[in-house]
């Protein structure tokens, strides 16, 4: 991985970020109704409103407003939430760790399960294991996370109550944490009881997010493995006398990773995007859930803040995926 490549990639993100800023600006300007009118208490005078309008730059022309808006963004000033009356950036950053932990658990789950399924069905090719994996896959693939979430609620919360269906942790115990990364913190501190409770709350939302990705990874990795397994160098490895397991994991897997990362990369992003909905369904206190509150209160600065943070997250994730691609591909390594 050359620094030049990384630089190129980061620079390419600039127009995308700018595009995101433009789209958010346009979307929020087409909102009917006056956002200022909602911000002020009923007894405010027209002078008060005008003053506020001026302080938000809303009395200027649209291009001027855009410049002011960009200027604020660049300085990291996302404004003040209308409904919560707090700094947007602080609010979003306070909730972000919960979303990140959810996404991380879901991604770990999908990568582990996806790899296991793909490797197992390649190793036991032509047996019932392969057909079983294929069947599960095609169903998991077709059903989006929203329906999985509902099915999981039905199955594991109502018919067979194993897991809680809402929240992140008992609020009484949430005060024990110094950071917002509850799961990481409890694991680092060795508080496994707390970690178990956190994971219990995470189980269903993470599974709902992970299931479609598990299927994608299993399918793509399996077909790449099958493509790789008929290559000459695999034949040569077999003729070198290596065991089947070693050939699969040592010789074939690294080669199958390349197409798998390319083809599944975008699905990791879909997974992170899916947190918005899954958080709402499971009342999980991340930024996605905050967004719904903001949307129903028409809290424009907050909507804008969450949107921009998500966009930034997506762009970083994209770069991480490309980096991992370069890392396993010797042709790009130097």
């Amino acid at each position, binding site marked *: 991985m050359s620094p030049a490549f990384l630089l190129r990639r980061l620079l390419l993100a600039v127009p995308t970020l700018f595009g995101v800023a433009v789209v958010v600006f346009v979307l929020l300007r087409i909102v009917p109704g006056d956002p200022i009118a909602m911000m002020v208490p009923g007894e405010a005078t027209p002078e008060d409103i005008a003053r506020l309008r001026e302080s938000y730059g809303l009395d200027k022309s649209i291009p001027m407003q855009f410049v002011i808006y960009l200027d604020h963004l660049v300085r990291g000033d996302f404004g003040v939430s209308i409904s919560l009356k707090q700094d947007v950036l602080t609010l979003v950053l306070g909730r972000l760790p919960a979303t990140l932990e959810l996404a991380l658990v879901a991604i770990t789950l999908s990568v582990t399960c996806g790899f296991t399924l793909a490797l197992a069905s390649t190793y036991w090719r*032509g047996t019932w294991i392969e057909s079983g994996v294929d069947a599960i896959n095609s169903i998991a693939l077709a059903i989006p996370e929203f329906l999985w979430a509902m099915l999981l609620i039905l199955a594991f919360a109502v018919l067979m109550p194993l897991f809680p269906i809402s929240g992140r942790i008992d609020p009484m115990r949430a005060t024990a944490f110094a950071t917002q990364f509850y799961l990481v913190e409890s694991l680092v501190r060795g508080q496994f009881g707390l970690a178990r409770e956190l994971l219990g709350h995470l189980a269903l939302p993470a599974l709902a997010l992970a299931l479609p990705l598990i299927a994608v990874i299993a399918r793509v990795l399996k077909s790449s493995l099958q493509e790789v397994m008929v290559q*000459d*160098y695999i034949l040569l490895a*077999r*003729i*070198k*006398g290596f065991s089947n397991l070693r050939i699969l994991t040592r*010789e074939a897997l690294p080669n199958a990773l390349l197409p798998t990362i390319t083809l599944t990369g975008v699905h990791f992003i879909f997974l992170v995007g899916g947190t918005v909905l899954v958080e709402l369904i499971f009342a999980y206190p991340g930024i996605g859930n905050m967004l719904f509150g903001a949307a129903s209160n028409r809290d424009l600065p907050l909507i804008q803040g969450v949107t921009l943070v998500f966009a930034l997250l997506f762009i970083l994730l994209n770069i991480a995926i490309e980096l991992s691609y370069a890392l396993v591909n*010797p042709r790009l390594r130097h």
Partner: protein
Amino acid sequence: MILDIENLRVSINAKGTRTPVLRGAHLQLEQGKILGLVGESGGGKTMVCKAILGVLPESARIESGAIRFEGRDLLAMPARERRGLLGRSIAMILQNPMTALNPVFRIEDQMTDVLRLHAGLDRAQARARALEMLTAVHIREPERVLRHYPHELSGGMCQRVVISIAFSCSPRLIIADEPTTALDVTVQHQILRLIRELQRKTGTSVLFITHDLGVVAKICDSVSVIYAGRILESGPVERIFSSQHHPYTQALLDAAPRYDRPDTALHPVSPELREQLAREAEEFDRRVDREVAHA
């Protein structure tokens, strides 16, 4: 006799239909010699080679016959023992050097893994042996080549590396499947000489699979011609390239242009000959079916 294939019958069973691909093939390779196996694509050359190595496709079934390696039938051997022979006693050189090496590993890893598995060498010993082998295939800067990835080497260089891997465990049999077909003609010349040189030095026997009778004439001691899964004729190269040969061998010779005989007309293998060979193959199939029905 290091390799003795007797009456080998293999068929492919796909979608309920059985297609014979090897029809009672016989093949004899003497210790320390190079045997050429020649034929057109689809004639069964590759199937012979896959049958010896035990890497036939899943749809293929061995119906009868024996593949004796140093007197022991590979087909009757337990799978684990048979696999133990691979790499140690039997090695292979593949057609396309650019795809024969694993693209994600350095040359060093790909040369030493087999040495560590079979020769019981440690990392340093294996590396020393790898350098020795690269020198033996006349690579000038073996140290540097070890650090490279396959895509950083030319086709000819990759094939030298593949050859050095094949010879590194001092196998007694090497199967070379069209090892020069993908190479330029000048590189082919070098690689052929290299294989000949190493083979003479180590006394290894080589089964050399090719479609090019010219290559056979230059490198092999004896030759077998295969068509539709049947060996049409076998014999020392001197005989086959002098006068007495099968009409099919003659037809192959007549089809290839020669720069030293520009005025000779080119003749494809005639439909009549193909028909006759197909009839013979069918007859063989019917005979086998009758035998099976009897038994």
